Each structure stands twice: as structure tokens, then as C-alpha cells.
């Protein structure tokens, strides 16, 4: 049974993505006790699934590694994974928190040797790769997962498969009797860093994401380009496995649209500009990227990156929101239809693959759990009237990593002040 020692001077951080990790570390390194609650089986959030970061094109694993090192060095952070905050009540300086922890069926004896994974044969869709491939039902979430511990998927519990996994483990790390646990503890302040999720692309009916194999989303494209991803880094078409050389990017897919998300998701222009470099990296001068856009929003210092991509002769920009997509059933090619704004030319453009620069929306509606206020798009307001709860990172707005980290640090500062007030009062 897990227990959490927490007091009214403890900071609760909900969400273990880059923002939640940052907020937890900043607070812990100033001497505060922190409970970090993550819904998934490992920390890292969405950035661990990116191939490279704009604008420097470095690998996200690098930043993750630094944060994990800081985390391991900190005695003040208690990390709960597979844990979800269910209910928060109370007031600043005195919150009562209910968290449910799902069973992992693997305890801390695990050395991540992988014997259980080898032993089972059942496969399930791999959520880390947005379901682009399957994985064993006894799995390590991803290579850099923290904690480095396997997970047994609930779908094989009470089957012979789970018994096989248990038998294969030499370290007595598999415990098939684990049950869901409900924990309750106190907290003085709360940071919501629950992040974002991609908008449901199938809802953009004219683009046929649910009908055409070669229409994919930008988050899936990150996985295709990643050497540790489902294709080993080969950018290939889902329909026939052919290399995609002529790639279309559709901006504002689901964003800035009163039929979908009304806000600008802010990062998707930069994400597509970045992804053209993935195409070039693989196909050299044979690469062909076309960005269909309303206007490119590369804010402040990102303008340099935009100009660099503009200078690449393999990248073409078409100022137009694509009206619809059809599929050439013989070849699997996608054909984009629309009219451009510069000259009002009608086009029916054929591409190997189409990437929807999908919009970001809040991953959960925190209002169902706690008394927070949100803006029209559902993002948590920066200053919640309550005064002891704060939004951080993409839970509070559509932000890139740099701005997420800034926002997380700002929230940590505010939360620390609340806790200091409590400490003084309790003296």
C-alpha cells in the first residue's frame, strides 16, 4: 500500500510533462516538499514523443535527461505514476486531495531486463506512438521512461499470459494481485500541469483523416521521423510503406476555426516548418514539402527559423486553407483541392502524404475535479480566484516548450508564496 506523507506545506503538482517536472523541481530545489502526480506510467509527457525541438533542432531526450537527473537528486519530490487526481476540496493552505493509483502489476524490484516482455505474445496498440504500431502487453513505456519499470497491461490480467510474464521474471517483481488504490492527503497549493491533447482530426470531415490512409497528423509524423519510432525513422506512407518524398502540410487543422477550436494553437506553424527539415534530412534535394497556410505565425525569435526554411528551395508555401482532400485509390496519393489567396488560382495538388498540423486542446477539463476557472477554449486561467491553484504550461495555454517552462516557473513562484504564508501562520 502506497502512502503519501503530505502536509499543508506540501505542493501538489498534477501532470508530469515538461511543465509539471519543471514546477516540481523549481519548488523542491527551494526546499518545498512536492507530490508529483502523473496519469501515465512514466514522466515526460508529450515532448518525449517529439523527434526534435524547434528552433535548435536538438533532441528532446537531452532536456528530459537533465530534468530526470535533477529529479533523482532531489529528496523532496514524491512521484506517483499511473495516478490520477480525482477530487480536490478545501482552500489555499488546506486542500484535501483524492488520488486513484492504477495497478502497474510490477513493483520496484524490476530491473527493466525485459524478460516478461519476451515471455508474453499478446500485442496491444502502442499509445506512445499514437497507435501507429503494436507492442507487447508487458512493456516499458519508452526507452528513457522514468521510473525504469515495466507495466503489465490490464487486458492480460487473469489470463495465462500474465502468468507467463510472472514466471519469466527472475526478480520477483511481478505482483498480479495489485489493486487500484485510493489515496487521500493534504496540500497547501496546487499546480495544474495537465497539458494538452491533439484535436480529434476525424472531426475535420473534408480532410478525410478517418478515410484516407495517407492523411496523418503532425504528432504521428514526429513518431515516423524518430529513429526510435515505429518505422525506425523512415518517413513512409501508411498505405503502402513507400517512402514519402512529396509531403503536404496543412496548417490550422482544427485551430482558428469556429467549427472546431477557436484559438490559434501557436506552435503548429513552427512544428510544420520544423517537420520540413525532417523531409529534407531524408530525401535531400529530392524532397518536396508544401505548406498550405492562412498566415505563418512564427513569433519573435522564431522568425529566423522561418526565414531559414523559406530559403530552402525544396519547401513551397501556398497561402490557402485547403478546402478538401480526395484520394487517388489506385496510387493512394492524396489530392488537395483549394484556391490560393495570392492570385486566386485553383489547384488540385497531388502529394504522397498529407500531414495535418493538428490543433492543441486542454487534455482534461479540470473543472470536473477542482474549482478552477477556464477561458473560452478550456485552458486554465492564469489567476484562479481561489488563490492557491495555478495553471502551468499547456494546461494554461497553447505554448511551446520554452514558454511552457517559463509558465511553470512562474506558477512555482506563486505556489511557493502560498506555502510560505501557510508556514508562517503555522509557525
Amino acid at each position: 500500500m502506497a502512502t503519501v506523507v503530505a502536509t499543508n506545506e506540501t505542493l501538489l503538482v498534477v501532470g508530469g510533462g515538461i511543465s509539471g517536472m519543471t514546477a516540481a523541481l523549481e519548488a523542491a530545489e527551494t526546499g518545498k516538499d512536492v507530490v508529483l502526480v502523473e496519469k501515465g506510467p512514466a514522466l515526460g509527457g508529450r515532448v518525449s514523443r517529439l523527434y526534435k525541438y524547434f528552433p535548435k533542432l536538438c533532441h528532446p531526450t537531452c532536456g528530459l535527461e537533465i530534468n530526470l537527473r535533477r529529479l533523482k537528486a532531489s529528496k523532496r519530490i514524491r512521484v506517483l505514476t499511473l495516478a490520477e487526481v480525482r477530487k480536490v476540496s478545501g482552500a489555499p493552505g488546506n486542500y484535501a486531495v483524492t488520488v486513484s493509483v492504477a495497478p502497474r502489476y510490477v513493483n520496484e524490484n524490476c530491473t527493466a531486463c525485459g524478460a516478461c516482455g519476451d515471455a508474453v505474445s499478446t500485442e496491444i496498440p502502442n499509445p506512445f506512438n499514437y497507435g501507429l504500431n503494436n507492442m507487447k502487453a508487458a512493456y516499458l513505456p519508452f526507452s528513457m521512461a522514468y521510473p525504469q519499470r515495466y507495466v503489465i497491461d490490464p487486458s492480460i490480467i487473469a489470463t495465462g499470459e500474465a502468468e507467463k510474464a510472472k514466471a519469466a521474471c527472475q526478480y520477483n517483481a511481478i505482483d498480479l494481485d495489485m489493486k487500484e488504490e485510493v489515496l487521500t492527503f493534504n496540500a497547501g497549493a496546487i499546480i495544474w500541469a495537465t497539458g494538452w491533447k491533439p484535436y480529434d482530426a476525424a472531426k475535420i470531415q473534408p480532410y478525410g483523416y478517418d478515410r484516407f490512409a495517407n492523411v496523418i497528423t503532425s504528432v504521428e509524423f514526429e513518431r515516423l521521423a524518430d529513429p526510435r519510432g515505429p518505422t525506425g525513422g523512415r518517413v513512409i506512407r501508411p498505405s503502402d510503406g513507400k517512402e514519402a518524398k512529396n509531403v503536404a502540410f496543412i496548417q490550422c487543422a482544427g485551430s482558428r476555426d469556429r467549427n472546431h477550436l477557436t484559438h490559434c494553437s501557436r506552435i503548429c506553424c513552427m512544428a510544420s516548418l520544423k517537420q520540413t527539415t525532417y523531409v529534407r534530412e531524408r530525401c535531400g534535394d529530392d524532397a518536396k514539402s508544401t505548406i498550405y497556410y492562412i498566415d505563418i505565425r512564427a513569433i519573435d525569435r522564431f522568425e529566423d527559423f522561418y526565414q531559414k526554411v523559406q530559403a530552402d528551395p525544396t519547401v513551397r508555401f501556398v497561402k490557402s486553407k485547403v478546402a478538401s482532400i480526395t484520394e487517388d485509390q489506385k496510387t493512394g496519393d492524396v489530392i488537395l483541392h483549394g484556391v490560393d489567396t495570392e492570385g486566386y488560382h485553383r489547384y488540385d495538388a497531388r502529394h504522397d502524404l498529407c500531414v495535418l498540423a493538428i490543433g492543441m486542446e486542454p487534455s482534461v477539463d479540470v473543472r470536473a475535479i477542482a474549482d478552477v476557472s477556464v477561458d473560452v477554449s478550456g485552458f486554465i486561467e492564469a489567476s484562479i480566484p481561489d488563490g492557491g491553484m495555478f495553471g502551468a504550461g499547456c494546461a494554461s495555454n497553447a505554448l511551446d516548450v520554452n514558454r511552457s517552462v517559463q509558465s511553470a516557473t512562474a506558477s512555482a513562484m506563486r505556489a511557493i508564496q502560498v506555502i510560505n504564508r501557510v508556514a508562517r501562520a503555522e509557525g
Partner: protein
Amino acid sequence: MTELNHKMVEQYRNDFLKEVEANVEEGDWVKMCMQCGVCSGSCPFGPDWEHPPQEIFMMIRAGKRDEVLRSESMWMCTSCYNCIVRCPRELPITHIMHGLANYAHRLGIAPKMNPTRRFAKIFWDNIAKNGRVNELDLSVKLYFMDGFKKGVKRAIEMSTVGLGMLKTGRLNPFGLVAHRGCKDKKGIQKMLKKARELEDRRRGLATRGA
């Protein structure tokens, strides 16, 4: 140029956007267009338009009054509503197209021979006269609007449709001589006249004899 057209040119000078906002149905939406192009790309008749909706909205803002109002473009709209359902800004594009067409017609500067305009006029006169469409009268007027020879040809082409309508009771074969119209035709005509007066007053379109 008609008197009403003169009046409007005088009143709005070079601010065509303002003129559209005040006088065209749903015209105050025009400024909301962000020029994304989805409407133009979504129109099934798009390739046949001289200026697709997105371009028309830009032309309005650019003050191209004559080019817009004398254009055949908005008369191409078939009310399929493809553009409306896709516009990210929810502009009622279809209604604006009809609003522009109607406004140009009221000003008397719409293209005289535009077939949609002519059909609309025949249809309106037909229904306004009797309070109910006289199918036979409408078809005859429509088929023969370009002269006798073309009319006969069209009538022959459409004869199977006509026979079908006859059989199902949708066409009164004696319509030309014995169309009854609705009850209280006078009442309907009075109502339509009043509605027009109210609308003209609201939109500031009322002029002597317009």
C-alpha cells in the same frame, strides 16, 4: 445608372464596405473574412465563377464597387451551403452572395442578361401575381425567354419531365387559362408591398418611384 444607384454612390462615396454593411443582407459579416480561401475551394461551381466569394469579399474591402455589383459571379451561387459549413469564421456566405445579387438588381446595375437574374424575376412576378406558382406559365416564360426557336427546343428537351409532372398532378395543363392562384390574392399582394416598404425604409433604399 438609376436614381437609386446615384443616391448610393453619393451617400457612401468611396466606402463600399460601409455601403455593403448597410444595404446588403448579412453585409456586416464581410469584414470578418480572413481570406483563408476555403469557401472558394469548396464551391462546386467555383471554377465557373469569375470572382469566387473570397475574392469578392476582398474586392468589397478594396472598394471595387462597380466590378462587384456588375459582376455575374454572385449570381452563380446555387445555395449548396458547402462554403457556409466550412468557413472557419462562420460567415453566412450564401446569404451574402444572394444579398449582393439582390442589391445589384435593386440598384438596376446587375447584368441585364444574366440567366439567374432573369429566372428569378420571372419566378417572382409569377408567384407575386397569384400567391402560388403557376408551373405552366413559369415553364413557358422560362423556355421562351431567349426567343421562339430556342423555346421550342427546350420544351421538347424537357417534355418527359413535364409529362411526369402532369401525371403526378404537379402541373395544371390548363394553367395558362385557368390558374386559380391562392385565396385572397389581393391580400398577399398588399402584404408583399408592405414588406417591401418596411425593408426599404429600414435599409434606406426608399426613393421616389424606386
